[in-house]
């Protein structure tokens, strides 16, 4: 599995992320909501984990196949990049 290419932001300084899935971007002033799995992924990206690590963690924690988790993960990245979060 290839790793993802993103514009890695400084999560500590630039984001406020709440356990409920609320995200405030201090640079743009925009706000977002993430669902449980979205939040799970974003946190791990913040921890600089690579794609296969993240997908594996998803399948360990949630009831989902690796293929589906991988497809969804990639789609999530596209979405987050389009929004400028990553």
């Amino acid at each position: 599995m290839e790793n993802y290419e993103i514009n890695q932001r400084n999560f500590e300084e630039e984001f406020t992320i709440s356990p409920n899935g609320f995200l405030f971007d201090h640079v743009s002033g925009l706000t977002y909501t993430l669902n449980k799995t979205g939040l799970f992924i974003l946190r791990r990206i913040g921890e600089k984990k690579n794609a296969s690590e993240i997908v594996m963690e998803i399948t360990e924690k949630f009831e989902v196949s690796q293929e589906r988790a991988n497809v969804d993960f990639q789609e999530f990245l596209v979405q987050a990049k389009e929004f400028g979060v990553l």
Partner: protein
Amino acid sequence: MKNLNVAITGLHAADSPAPGVPVARSILHEGKWEGKIIGLGYDSFDTGIYDKGLFDEIYLIPYPSEGEFNVLARIRQIHQKTKIDVLIPTLDAELNSFMRIRPELEEMGIKVLLPNDSSLKMRSKAVLSNFCEKYDIPFPRTKVIFDYAGISQAIEDFGFPIVVKGSFYDAYIAYSYNEAVIYFNKISSVWGLPIVVQEMIKGEEYDVCCLSDFHGKVIGKVPMRKLRLTPKGKAWAGVTILDKELLELSDKILERIHWNGPCELEFLKNEKNGKYYLIEINPRFPAWIYLSAGAGTNLPYTAVRIISGEHVEPLAPCKSGVIFVRHATDMICPLDYLESLTTKGELIFNKSEEKEL
């Protein structure tokens, strides 16, 4: 009675202010309130949410356009967390759904004071002129229209300017056909059809806020002359008055329409003949209702008394010459508020903490 939990809708006090905030302020005006004042909002940026010290708890609810079942389901959910004793809806567009779910609300123990179906229909903008004709109440000539042809017809009959109104909200004065078309489109794209067109009556604007009990008896009236208007015709300053003719006319209207609960009668005093013309009946408290507390006839507070089952005799007339001036201000609020509202749809204030903010 002061230990009741009162839920109030309509928290957005922006350029066309909703009455929820002044209703809450009026209730709190009569000394310490031991129950909770609960705000039911539609959007995390409903301004009243951030007016600290007014509400104990805020919950977001679905728009009435989402259907009454969703509204009911959400209220049930809130009621399980925080018992609601009394609910006061303050927006026109909500009324239909609250009237429909009234039996379920009452079954849960939530009390409301709402108009009945037929009086609500009678006051709707599209048929109010029929009502007025029947009971000989002066009223501007009105047309209910569905298309541009209706605009031309109205212009031919009424001349310029004409008033273009939506069936729920919004009204504009048009001085040309093209302008009328623009307002027609603007209003119908948001509030749908039909559109109501009226002849323009020139004169001073007067409002009377009234409160009737469960039996249709008028318990209180607060008449007010508008002193300052916004470009949209909203009162930005006003003064209580005492005009017997206006009060008697209001009584006559409410009696004929068999009203229950709060409403606002809007009049224009025609400068040509000095008569009061009924422009609209709004089925709720007006946004200037805090004036009623200032003038010694606190109608929202009285409404809670009535709803809680107290027997209330008609109130003495309000003090005339009491002025209100509306004032817009900015409030500061922490990011947590927005976080809680957008993710959980609720905001529970810790009242002692706020003092320090």
